[in-house]
């Protein structure tokens, strides 16, 4: 269930990062990339529940920690979309993934040259806007003032902490540039395809068994038809 995977580091070596998986050496091997920032927490239980369904139905699944994320000891403030994409591609290789599933903003780091599914992909702009708004609101509640322009400027030059997340200048620039997911070769799955309410909106983490079932069924059916 829990093991490590060799994640590339900027120095050219590798460091061990956590890997949550159901690996029985089966033919179908699905790498799942959680959303970025707070939505990763919101989907944690949903992803684990969905992975169990895949396991029961004969599909191996792998959910790797990327540097700076979850249990990783690498500083979050040293990361960028480019680094995470490179690491996601390495994770796909290390896990011998046959398919990829991105969820929400992890479509921004979808490994290139592979195939799979993007559940409700979202671009960089709404991700950054949400962080900025949360920071502005927190600042106002604390009696401070903060504007989006000031935060963007400070973040692009020196890096910044937004809503508790340390962001490098590179990551700020990538988000501010408003990148859209590059997901050629991937099938987009919308919320309406699997039903239920958007879990990323929930103020507290939630688990929806019906959504897990629908998503796993959709993907397994698609795997069988390819």
């Amino acid at each position, binding site marked *: 269930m829990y093991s490590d995977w060799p994640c590339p580091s900027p120095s050219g070596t590798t460091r061990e990062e956590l890997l949550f998986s159901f690996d029985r050496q089966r033919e179908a091997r699905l790498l799942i990339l959680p959303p970025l920032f707070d939505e990763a927490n919101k989907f944690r239980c949903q992803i684990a529940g969905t992975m169990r369904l895949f396991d029961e139905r004969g599909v191996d699944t792998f959910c790797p920690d990327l540097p700076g994320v979850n249990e990783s000891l690498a500083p979050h403030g040293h990361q960028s979309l480019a680094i995470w994409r490179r690491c996601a591609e390495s994770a796909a290789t290390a896990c011998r993934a046959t398919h990829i599933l991105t969820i929400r903003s992890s479509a921004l780091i979808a490994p290139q040259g592979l195939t799979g599914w993007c559940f409700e992909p979202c671009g960089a702009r709404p991700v950054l806007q*949400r962080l900025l708004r949360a920071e502005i609101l927190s600042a106002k509640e604390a009696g401070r003032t903060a504007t989006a322009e000031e935060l963007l400027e400070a973040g692009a030059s020196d890096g910044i902490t937004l809503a508790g997340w340390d962001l490098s200048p590179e990551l700020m620039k990538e988000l501010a540039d408003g990148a859209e997911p590059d997901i050629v070769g991937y099938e987009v799955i919308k919320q309406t395809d699997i039903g239920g309410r958007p879990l990323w*909106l929930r103020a507290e983490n939630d688990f929806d068994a019906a959504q897990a079932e629908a998503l796993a069924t959709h993907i397994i059916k698609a795997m069988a038809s390819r």
Partner: protein
Amino acid sequence: MTAETATAEPAGPSRSDIDQTLRAILRDVLGLKDKQVEDFDSDTGLFGHLPELDSMAVAGLLTEMEDRLDIVIDDDEIDGEMLENYGALLAFAEAKAVAG
């Protein structure tokens, strides 16, 4: 008087539509049942009253309001008062919808 004002404005969502949409968003954000959000009144406390409705959840709520109500919320307009209770948030959403 309200009806006269409404007919003079460009076509847009009615007050009732805005109310229903806002309740649906809060239902999704707070994980409530339809009946629970139907019981919301103007004084129902939101930000600062519900521990789970933190700044990140509010940021998501505002983005969803923009998408579902087809409005644009300037970041500088965001403050605790407009989010303090359901009545204040509804009034804000209505004002933004009218402003187009």
